């Protein structure tokens, strides 16, 4: 059952959905931005701790589908220690993986995020995976208003 879905729902995704990492309110966050996907009601708040242009810590709160929860959980893990420029560069690679042309995909460059590559076959679900990153992008640009994938 659900054999067709194995590319989309990998075990790592179920794991992050069941036990999301960095899932807490960061009281002393330097950046706090809300992300919202009005299509499915996914809602998250992203918290960042910064040291200059370096992300020293990241956490989130909110509710969403397994894809969006796993995506933000993985993202908050992977961006710790990255500079703003490095995080933006990773977002660009992630974006290419989920929505770009086949030849632009570099699974090695995105590391653990490669488990989300399956969403490109499900156009209705791409926004679930990218919401976290659009929210991060807004946080890095210091946009304090709620952002939306629409």
């Amino acid at each position: 059952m659900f054999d067709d879905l194995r590319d989309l729902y990998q075990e790592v995704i179920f794991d992050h959905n069941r036990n999301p990492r960095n899932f807490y309110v960061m009281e002393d966050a330097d950046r706090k931005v809300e992300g919202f996907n009005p299509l499915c009601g996914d809602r998250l708040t992203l918290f960042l701790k910064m040291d200059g242009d370096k992300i020293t810590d990241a956490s989130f709160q909110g509710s969403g589908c397994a894809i969006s929860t796993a995506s933000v959980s993985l993202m908050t893990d992977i961006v710790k220690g990255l500079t703003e420029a490095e995080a933006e560069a990773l977002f660009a690679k992630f974006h290419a993986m989920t929505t770009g042309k086949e030849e632009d995909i570099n699974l090695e460059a995105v590391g653990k995020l490669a488990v989300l590559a399956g969403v490109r076959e499900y156009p209705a679900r791409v926004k679930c995976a990218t919401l976290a990153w659009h929210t991060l992008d807004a946080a890095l640009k210091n946009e304090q208003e709620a952002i939306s994938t629409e």
Partner: protein
Amino acid sequence: MSTFPVEKIRADFPILQEKIRNKPLVYLDNAASCQKPQQVIDSIVHCYSHEYANVHRGVHTLSVRATDRYEGAREKIQQFINAQSTKEIIFVRGATEAINLVAQTFGKTNIKSGDEILITAMEHHSNIVPWQMLCAETGAVLKVAPINLHGELIFDEFEALISDKTKLVSVVHMSNALGTVNPVKKIIAAAKAKNIPVLLDGAQAIPHMAVDVQALDCDFYVFSGHKLYAPSGIGVLYGKQALLEAMPPYQGGGDMIRKVTFEESEYNSLPYKFEAGTPNIADAIGLGAAIDYLSEIGMDNIAKYEAELLDYATEKALQIEGLRIIGDTSEKGAILSFVLDKIHPHDIGTMLDSLGIAIRAGHHCAMPVMDFFEVPATARASFAMYNTKEEIDVLMAGIEDLIKIFG
């Protein structure tokens, strides 16, 4: 259940033969839009192949033929909802446009600063936003009657919100997000006691039950063709003749005028006053064909069959651990809105899709309803007359399987 000719009906809907992801399609997203029988598809092909020209215009044969068919569809609708006259049947794009029409014409003429418009907490966005826009323009106030945890209108509170300032009551006949069928007769009686006109949003109700606008005594009734087995892009505004006569036109243009000079224009009579420009001729004819099709089966038979489907689905759903039905009043149409513990509706939607099952996952254009039940979204299986118990079994097995896989 065996007397309802569901297999014969299914054979009329070519799309039901489609395979989705190599599985037979189980189409349970009927509240979003219904599939079309061959008879409706044929009527459109026939129109464009044999009887298409502009209506109300030419003296040539084809134009007369097209006009007869287009006006014939209007007569079918008039009979279907038992309106007094075809003058009361206005063709629009859908229920949404019909509500906007009423807001922009009846609303702008009759609703002033400080006046109130009363809706319920279970409305579709299409019966919220046009009134908010009107309120923003006029300074009127939108009042919202609350619902309870069964998804029922709290009637006493609704009644208490009717005041001397209320100028219009606009409520949904059947909720698309919950399935609740509102006690519209009581609602209308309460409004009439204070001479307040009532608009019923019938988009969801019309494919599931017989509607008699005279028996209801509503002032406006709106619905969309595409939820009634007819094409998208065509819908109906029913309004009582006296109200429609008193309303200014909605849009200006051809067909809605009697005489035009550069100084002034004289408007056409009903229903044409509200139908500026070349209308959606073929799809109106398609709506007429859908009504013929439904009339042959009988709306009461459809309602009875669908009630059995809903009972069966509800009983099965309640046996699934961790499943919570959103909207569990006994007064319901064939909609099963639900959530699962720790599994987001969007995941449910994708997983069921891989089994060939089409349901809706989301807020159903009723975000305030989601807020009330404190869920971001729901999964919704909505049934039509062509669905079967076997399809419900496929749905329930799919739900049980996806619960297992999510662990």
